[in-house]
């Protein structure tokens, strides 16, 4: 169950099962610091995949004109982000092909609980079927995901 923690009347962050996915004090500053840390990588990349959505503030610091995807295992966080920021350039990753040629960046505060799984994605193209199935689990009706799920059945 997702709830909102209000830092100020205008600013809230999501909580799921008492778990936070970004700074409780200043998530915007945290996001800005993340973007500064990766300035060069972001500048040089045409395509970026961000591992971890959290509250999504960090995605606003990626300049327009880039192809940006994010991976997030908590579907409620994706729904929240799409509702709050329908015009964001960052879209949920829905295909393994979207990882190809991308600069993969981690947003640590949002991935702490599934660090190993996110690291496995960061190892692309050396990425296994279980991780792929987990990564795309929110989109079972997509043809590509159906194919991965079929392959998943072949792995004991």
């Amino acid at each position, binding site marked *: 169950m997702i709830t909102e923690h209000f830092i100020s009347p205008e600013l809230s962050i999501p909580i799921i099962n008492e778990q936070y996915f970004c700074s409780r004090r200043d998530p915007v500053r945290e996001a800005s610091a993340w973007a500064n840390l990766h300035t060069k990588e972001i500048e040089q990349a045409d395509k970026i995949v961000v591992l971890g959505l959290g509250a999504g503030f960090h995605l606003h610091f990626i300049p327009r004109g880039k192809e940006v995807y994010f991976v997030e295992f908590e579907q409620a966080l994706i729904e929240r982000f799409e509702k709050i920021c329908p015009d964001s350039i960052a879209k949920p990753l829905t295909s*393994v092909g979207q990882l190809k040629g991308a600069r993969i960046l981690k947003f640590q505060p949002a991935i702490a609980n599934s660090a190993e799984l996110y690291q496995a994605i960061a*190892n692309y*193209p*050396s*990425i*296994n*079927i279980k*991780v*792929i199935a987990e990564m795309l689990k929110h989109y*079972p*009706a997509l*043809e*590509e*995901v*159906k*194919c*991965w*799920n*079929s*392959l998943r*059945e*072949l*792995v004991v």
Partner: protein
Amino acid sequence: MKILVLSLLRLGDIIMQEPLFAEIKAQYPQAQVDVLINDQFLSVREIIPGIDKWIGFPRNELQAMLAKNPSEHLLAFDKLQDQLKELNQKNYDIIFNFTHNFLSARLMDQLTGKDKRGLQYKDGIKLNSQNQWQVYMNESFTELKGSRFHYLEVLANSLGLNVPKKKPAFLRQGNKILLQLFTSDPKKNWQLESFKQLMKMLIQEYPDKSVLALCSPSELSTARKYFSEAQIIAPTLSELKRILANTDLLVSGDTSVQHLAAAQNCKVLSLFMGSADAIKTSAWQLGGYSIEGAADCYPCAHSKPCHQATHICGRSIKVDKVLNFVKVLLSGNEMEKLHGRSEQEHSQGLSC
């Protein structure tokens, strides 16, 4: 009209399904019928007639790719997607899923067809069938549960097909009795020592008949420990089909060979033990008989090895009992002589 059947189980299951393939042909005489099977079993095309195209599903290859370096997983994806694309380009009108597992249900989700029948997902969600036979299949064939019906009856009804008629077993006055030694699973095997004793008794009883031990080429070395070279045959599937068409009686624990024999109207005496369940998977034959092992744990789970210190159900089937059944079946008086025996000595011909 084009029809695709998914049959992604083992060899014995494909052979058992032959009457259903024939039923599809009977119900849709103008249709092109293609069957998708695991490619290591493509040799069945030599023994099952009437199918327009056998298509191999590269299950082992895909599994090998998925077991290797993760980067091969992307190749496995391409391979599967290519095959499904090719299948979908054929524009099948009806797709039957003869396979009761998650893989086939997922593939059904990827395949496009006007009428899709059997276990399936739709857009990633498992469809709950309103067909009570399919519900029954789920309940009785995916877990360790008994069934009142044979697999073919349940499958046919769950897919809207007519239940195929049982083939009659012919009383042949030939000169051959085959003892089929092995199954795919040690717990379903009758003791080789018992087969050896049975052969000895049969040779004495029927000096004019040729009593032979039957096995596959890969089982020859084990068979040679109990039988002489002259007593063993190890034919290919197509050779075996021809042999069975001229055999008086087959004694076997292996359902693949039992089903193949039934298709050739060869009388079958089935020995069921371990996880082999006579009611569910015995030869679809009128006049064939089964002897089931007697043990509290019979039938046991497919996936686990026998947990008993000795093979109780196998050892409960005595050689003299099998011999008596053989004698009755070869005399052609089984209706009179076997009717009314205990439940363990289950007659497929009489009970169904």
